[in-house]
């Protein structure tokens, strides 16, 4: 798939699908989400228009060579931390794909459904593999937040595999796994340990 992503592209995807992305990915973690929302809430604009782009929950390891930033490694961070802010983030920025790891909750599922976005996971910790799909750093903003928290605008080519775990039809892959885990815990494991 290529950025800018259209709603039509996104609506075709279903949980369990594996995609590769080319185009522009912008990293944003906790602090970047908070700052972006406080700017947008007060009517301001972000240093980069995120409409149709992919947001990557990632704080990369970067290096500066000949005055240019290069990505050394860049795997995903745990998405749960951004969960409380993601609904509004998707609504206000028009981002179409969220890339992370560890899954996200009901409000994000609702946002994906309502605004036509997806949440995909990249293998957590596989940071060297992730960096292989990254061509170059196009821009960086908000370095005052620290290197992990800054907005890194990165050109990617065949970045993935990304597995869709929240689609735009209200499905969350992790919900079904989670229900089965808790069923086993209560019905099979508690009796074994006598609680």
């Amino acid at each position: 798939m290529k950025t800018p992503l259209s709603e039509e592209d996104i609506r075709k995807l279903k949980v369990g699908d594996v995609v590769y992305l080319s185009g522009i990915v912008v990293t944003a973690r906790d602090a970047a989400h908070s700052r972006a929302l406080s700017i947008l809430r007060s009517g301001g604009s972000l240093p980069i228009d995120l409409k149709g782009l992919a947001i990557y929950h990632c704080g990369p390891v970067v290096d500066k060579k000949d005055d240019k930033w290069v990505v050394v490694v860049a795997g995903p961070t745990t998405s749960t931390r951004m969960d409380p802010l993601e609904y509004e983030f998707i609504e206000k920025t028009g981002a179409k794909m969220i890339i992370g790891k560890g899954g996200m909750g009901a409000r994000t599922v609702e946002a994906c459904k309502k605004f036509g976005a997806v949440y995909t996971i990249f293998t957590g910790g596989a940071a060297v593999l992730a960096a292989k799909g990254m061509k170059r750093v196009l821009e960086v903003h908000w370095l005052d937040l620290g290197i992990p928290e800054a907005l890194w605008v990165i050109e990617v080519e065949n970045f993935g595999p990304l597995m869709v775990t929240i689609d735009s039809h209200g499905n969350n892959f992790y919900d079904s796994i989670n229900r089965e885990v808790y069923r086993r815990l209560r019905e099979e494991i508690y009796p074994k340990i006598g609680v």
Partner: protein
Amino acid sequence: MLDVSLDKRIEDAIVMLLKAASIYLPQDVKNALIKARDLEDNPLAKAQLDAIIENCELAEVEGKPICQDTGLISFYVSVGDEFPVKGALADILRRATIRATREIPLRPNSVDVLSGKNPGDNTGRYVPHIDWELIPNNSELKVTAFPKGGGSEGPCLAKVILPTEGLKYAKKMVLDAVAEAGPKPCPPTVIGVGLGGTMDFAVKLAKKALLRPIGVRSDVEDIAKLEVELLELINSLGIGPHGVGGRTTALDVHVDCAHRHPASYAVAVVFNCWAVRRSTMIMDSKGNVDFITHKFMNELWR
């Protein structure tokens, strides 16, 4: 005669030690991941493990950190009372951390707890964390570098339970924690459990238990049995690698215990992501180094 001071040799060795930990997974962890992949029959889980294994191979070939989260750095130091450098060690470890951050490079992860400011060099108040042990009648310095990622900190927990609830409830706490954590701590994880002592001591035991190689059981027989039982129960939950389902949710469980107060029963559960990055070196009083977890580093050192 050495041409550089012992202080400088220690600093250089610690930079190498951090490099070893950040780039090369210990052999026991690599073996456990390959075994998990070979055991797996769920294709989604197998794909996650394939990506993990491929990533580790790439990290070694390209000389890059395994994960972008190069962790908050802890050192476990055992220093012989006859080793010539002692008081200066904390400063040396700090200097080595700053150098390693620049040279490897590592991501600067140390953040001021109130202001959120990042000094950019992986140091700060009590960071890197140093755990000290003084060894009598010994002239060696042994250091383990243990950078731990932030994602696997999230689900860690500690609680003082009622002694009447005891072991049964402690097991429940571990299993509930694993179920609640789901995909978040980057499974397959290694789980450290501390029982007894006071609460701070239980947490310390749980964390230190993670230093034990995968597959090595506790020397306390009943604790060893508990480790096997917990590992089987955890892997029967079906969370699997990165939570996509499958056989391996944990690569191992390591438990340690201390005598407790009759009125309290502390339980601590500490998670480590699949990237269990630990490296250990021993230096003799003349400055000769043996990287015991990463023997190939001995060649690079000379």
